């Protein structure tokens, strides 16, 4: 379980996280929503030790973040931030093999390669595994990076805006994969996402952040309420039940 206690973070004088406390349940998909600048990405970065916090505590499986050895932590928790700026000419297979780095320091054993193959199959990348990343489309690239995360085989998977720049088809594909990861492999998935309807349809829990504070958390039914979303986003919302999913209109 991931537990955050009284976390604060400032950029200069700007308070990005203000006394945030929450617990994240294992084996579920948890989405973080909220307007730009609400502190969602910062929260994920701090939980995954990419960024230092000002005060407060993060516990991962009961052990405080600072007490984790970074290599051990890399076997426990993985994060994928927006990656479209990374420019490196690696083949898909090479990229995925780097997911095994925490386990083998780059000298992959047979077992490591087996994990790499599984991850490639899981993301249906077999036919393009020897292509270079710069030859791929946005959706294929995203799948390749997720395959790397799968090869890393961590209990917790954090993704910062995984649907950024993807069309509807690829977005659905990615969200379905994340659900499968939670259901089939028991992974705990945390995502920062802007599209509330995707969050509503595919996540077990939703956490709403606004101005650095947790405004509300719960299932889709608790979160997709007109009064709550109108207050958070300062927009008019209309929420409908469609095929047992809460869908909101705000256009």
């Amino acid at each position, binding site marked *: 379980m991931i537990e955050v206690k009284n976390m604060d973070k400032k950029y200069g004088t700007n308070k990005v996280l203000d006394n945030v406390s929450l617990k994240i349940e294992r084996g579920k998909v948890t989405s973080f929503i909220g307007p730009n600048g609400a502190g969602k990405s910062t929260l994920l*970065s701090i939980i995954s030790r990419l960024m230092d916090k000002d005060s407060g505590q993060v516990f991962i499986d009961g052990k405080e973040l600072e007490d984790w050895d970074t290599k051990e932590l*890399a076997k426990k928790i*993985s994060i994928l931030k927006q990656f479209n700026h990374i420019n*490196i000419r*690696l083949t898909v297979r090479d990229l995925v093999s*780097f997911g095994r780095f*925490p386990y083998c320091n*780059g000298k992959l054993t047979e077992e490591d390669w087996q994990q790499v193959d599984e991850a490639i199959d899981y993301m249906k990348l077999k036919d393009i595994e020897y292509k270079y990343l*710069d030859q791929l489309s946005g959706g294929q690239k995203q799948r390749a990076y997720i395959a790397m995360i799968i090869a890393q085989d961590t209990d917790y998977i954090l993704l910062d805006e995984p649907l950024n720049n993807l069309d509807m088809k690829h977005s659905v594909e990615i969200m379905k994969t994340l659900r499968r990861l939670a259901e089939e492999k028991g992974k705990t998935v945390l995502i920062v996402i802007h599209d509330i309807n995707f969050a509503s349809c595919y996540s077990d829990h939703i956490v709403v952040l606004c101005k650095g504070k947790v405004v509300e958390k719960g299932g889709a039914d608790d979160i997709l309420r007109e009064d709550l979303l109108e207050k958070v986003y300062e927009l008019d919302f209309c929420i409908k039940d469609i095929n047992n999913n809460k869908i909101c209109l705000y256009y």
Partner: protein
Amino acid sequence: MKILILILVLLSIFSIFIGVKDISIWDIPNLNKGQIHILMLSRIPRLISIIVAGFGLSICGLIMQRITQNRFVSPTTAGTMDSAKLGILTSIIIFPGSSTLTKMITSFIFALAGSFMFLGILRRIKYRNTVMIPLIGLMLGGVLDSITSFLAYRYDLVQNISSWLQGDFSMIIKGRYELLYVSIPFVILAFIYANKFTLAGMGKDLSVSLGLNYNQVVAVGLTIVALISSTVIITVGRIPFLGLIIPNLVSIYMGDNLKKSLLYTALLGAIFLLFCDILGRIIIYPYEIPIGLTVGVLGSLIFLYLLARRKGYEA
């Protein structure tokens, strides 16, 4: 791979047997004393220094390009060479008559400081576009270079310092190049760290997330670059373009996984440098064109070609 090694061996043999003093490969069974003397004193040291410098500089370029995630960065475009030069000058001023080793150590320290300064500037700059990064490096190099010139004028060392401006292998003889050997363990270290450099090339966030000690890997990388650069500039001089074009050429065919591409980069670097050296030695035989010039001309042509084919291979 085999082809590259074969080319390198052939060029090496060729290189040994060209020069003002006629020595043919058929003389080998019965070389006279004078011929052996020339081989041991001049031809073989020259060959070794070219190969070591070619290995070293192309590896330096590759490491810097991965660390900065920019294909246009190399020791010559990131201020490393200029800081090394400033270091040599400083050591001449502060410790007059100092040994080559002292000069090398000072220039190494300066080169290392210069590379860290470059990375420090990059971290502070928000607007990080592809062309901006090498431009910053060139500017930093320009500033350092002007300090060097100023000091050189001040202490009447202009002639002295200009002898490092242009790379030249014709001055390499036994006893004047051995310092290059210092770089060999660092070339080996680069191979040991190959995987980590590749990972660091995917950015700090991703490296940390995969459990890599990012800052340590960057520090090791810059140390390798600074050390190889300073040994090369002291023994051979400044060789442009090599660290820039060779890693890019190899990347087109082999990608950026250093585990696969590092050896190719090193070999191709040595081949290219050796080829340029041989060319410089035969074009106006029995005189020589300095290697800096031949590498510069050939290198800039290849560089233009690389720029032109950048479509679908965005740097």
